[in-house]
């Protein structure tokens, strides 16, 4: 697997060290000569010095046919131009673009960037989920918020505790994808009995999430 890491400071450093030595083909591009020297010294990986939105830089660094291209630069529009060039002219399979302005998440997606990451956007979303649900529940959104994973711990007072899944008439558009029961992980079927202290991982649409949580937390 070939991964290109374009620009960025400590985040680039972190990602490089995460993938280093994992049998992955890393291509590192950085426009800051001093930072490039630092990466070479500290991580012992070669760094190509240049601006990743220039054609000759992508050409000479060996970006062609990469599986993933990650743009971590400070300017959103520079990251955009680099991702577009990588995607359209260098046959890169997937582009990930970081942005500082959270409004650019939707814009960049509409213009064809595969994946856009904004820390403010993520923060806002986790505040939203945290404030809408009780703190015993953890949620995770995947596939651009079309699917949510919800983790709920079963309290003995809940109506569904000690019942078989087939008997509880679980809401539609949601499934219990797995049950974590110390120390095992159970992939449930209809005859699985839900026990107190089980951690249920439920997969659902965002619309159904609240309904599912209410259903599970109904007490006897």
């Amino acid at each position, binding site marked *: 697997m070939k991964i290109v890491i374009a620009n960025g400071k400590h985040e680039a450093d972190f990602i490089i060290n995460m993938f280093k030595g994992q049998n992955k083909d890393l291509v590192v591009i950085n426009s800051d000569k001093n930072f490039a020297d630092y990466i070479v010294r500290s991580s012992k990986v070669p760094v190509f010095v240049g601006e990743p939105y220039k054609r000759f830089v992508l050409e000479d660094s060996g970006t062609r046919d990469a599986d993933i291209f990650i743009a971590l630069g400070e300017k959103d*529009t*520079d990251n955009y*131009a680099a991702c577009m060039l990588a995607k359209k*002219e260098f046959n890169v399979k997937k582009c990930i673009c970081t942005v500082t302005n959270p409004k650019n998440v939707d814009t960049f997606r509409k213009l064809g960037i595969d994946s856009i990451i904004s820390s403010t956007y993520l923060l806002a979303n986790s505040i939203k989920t945290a404030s809408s649900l009780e703190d015993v529940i953890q949620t995770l959104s995947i596939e651009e918020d079309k699917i949510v994973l919800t983790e709920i711990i079963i309290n003995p007072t809940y109506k569904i505790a000690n019942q078989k899944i087939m008997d509880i008439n679980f809401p539609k558009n949601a499934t219990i994808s797995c049950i974590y029961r110390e120390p095992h992980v159970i992939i449930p079927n209809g005859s699985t009995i839900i026990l107190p202290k089980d951690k249920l991982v439920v997969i659902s649409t965002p619309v159904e999430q609240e309904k599912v949580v209410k259903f599970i937390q109904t007490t006897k």
Partner: protein
Amino acid sequence: MRNKVLIIGCGRLGANIAALASEKGQNVLVIDRNENAFDRLPESFAGYKINGDATDLSLLEEAYIRTAKEVVIATGDDNVNLFLAHVACVIFEVPSIYVRLDDPERGSLLNGLKIKAIYPFELSINKFNLMKGEDL
């Protein structure tokens, strides 16, 4: 009805295009993030000046991009220009888009889109070759 001319970037090129369009009686709006840039516009300029960052789509909406018949993009940053050209074309479907790019290489990312590019570098080279030919 699409009847407005939107100029993004009030540098020498943007300001002059804006002045010309205003002189011809067009409904002109100029955006620049630096307020002093508007000093380049002549006294007679009758259009609107909007101070702000055009890469923020809500500002473009405030500048009536949805009713623009023509957008001229001439900021000093090629990547900003490229991005804005894509935004004007793909998101706001402006019928007529002109963009200035200093680096002719960047132009390949406009292929297949209804965007017209102006390359000052190529114009200078062409002019040079022309003058050189005349001198021979």
